[in-house]
């Protein structure tokens, strides 16, 4: 016999994203979805960011990878609670995976970073319920990428232009990147950063702090 289900899981996925968002609200957490190509420097950016923000805000991290726990181990080495998600082949995190990871993380933190799978197409299309979207874009990827992956950039609240310490070795100037980002990510705050030298990390962290303040003008627990 044939049993018709016609069950839409996409709508279910949107409901789970909404539930994640509500959960962040209730707990006074600001959740940041970190996207970027493989090797853009997402984990290195977190390694530069967490030591500054973790003592003040209490950070937690969800690491998304197709396989391996290497990124999760790098975060755990900083003493920051982390859950590693292996998507088993899927090219992006879905909201149910994030919901599952949240179960494993301790409460009390005010900043959650979700490092998405290295990919600029699918993660941009799938809402996982986070409050801010940040694209990490390294100078070695070349300035054509924002035009090739327009959605990720157009939806970004901030773009971190990473590995700027390598610019002297490239035939490209910082302005080449800033020009293209001005066109493809006009609404995004842009932060040229080198996780290696620490350049620009202060401005990037100040932006995150401002986002927490904007989202929650009161301290956690008062409302």
């Amino acid at each position, binding site marked *: 016999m044939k*049993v018709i289900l016609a069950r839409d899981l996409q709508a279910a996925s949107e409901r789970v994203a909404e539930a994640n968002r509500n959960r962040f609200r209730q707990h006074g957490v600001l959740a940041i979805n970190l996207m970027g190509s493989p090797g853009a420097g997402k984990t290195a950016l977190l390694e530069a960011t967490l030591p500054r923000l973790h003592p003040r805000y209490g950070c937690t991290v969800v690491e998304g990878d197709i396989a391996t726990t290497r990124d999760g181990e790098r975060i755990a080495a900083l003493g920051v609670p982390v859950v590693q998600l292996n998507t088993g082949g899927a090219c992006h995190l879905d909201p149910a995976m994030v919901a599952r990871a949240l179960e494993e993380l301790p409460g009390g933190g005010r900043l959650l970073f979700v490092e998405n799978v290295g990919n600029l197409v699918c993660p941009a299309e799938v809402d996982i319920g986070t409050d801010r979207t940040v694209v990490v874009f390294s100078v070695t990827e070349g300035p054509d990428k924002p035009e090739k992956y327009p959605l990720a950039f157009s939806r970004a609240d901030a773009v971190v232009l990473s590995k700027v310490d390598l610019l002297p070795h490239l035939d490209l100037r910082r302005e080449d990147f800033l020009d293209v980002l001005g066109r493809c990510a006009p609404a995004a705050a842009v932060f040229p950063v080198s996780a290696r030298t620490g350049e620009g990390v202060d401005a990037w962290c100040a932006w995150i702090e401002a986002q927490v303040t904007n989202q929650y003008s009161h301290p956690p627990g008062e409302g």
Partner: protein
Amino acid sequence: MALVEEILTACRQAATSHGVTKVTAVHITVGEMAACADALRFAWVACRGRFPPLEEAALDIRTVPATWVCARCGAEYREPVGRCQACGAALPRLQSGLELRVDYLEGDDDRHGRASAGLPA
């Protein structure tokens, strides 16, 4: 994988309420951008045994290609583009490719034995 859990739950409910004792195939529709079909197949084989009637159920996946469509002139693209190459409008949007649907299952029920025809698709 979370998605396979959802499919299993949907199938379990449907099979139970229709008295299906052995599911032979589960038919789903998956957008190219929604999930990786190979990963789904892998996770399906790993997880289906949790509900015994699904133990030997094949997963039949109908894949929907991702398309982006210009809101102004309707031009279609198979990959994301910043501007419509036909009319210049900004950012054609994803129109298909995010589908995720459990369509139907086939199986044997305890009263009538195997009969996959007879019901509308």
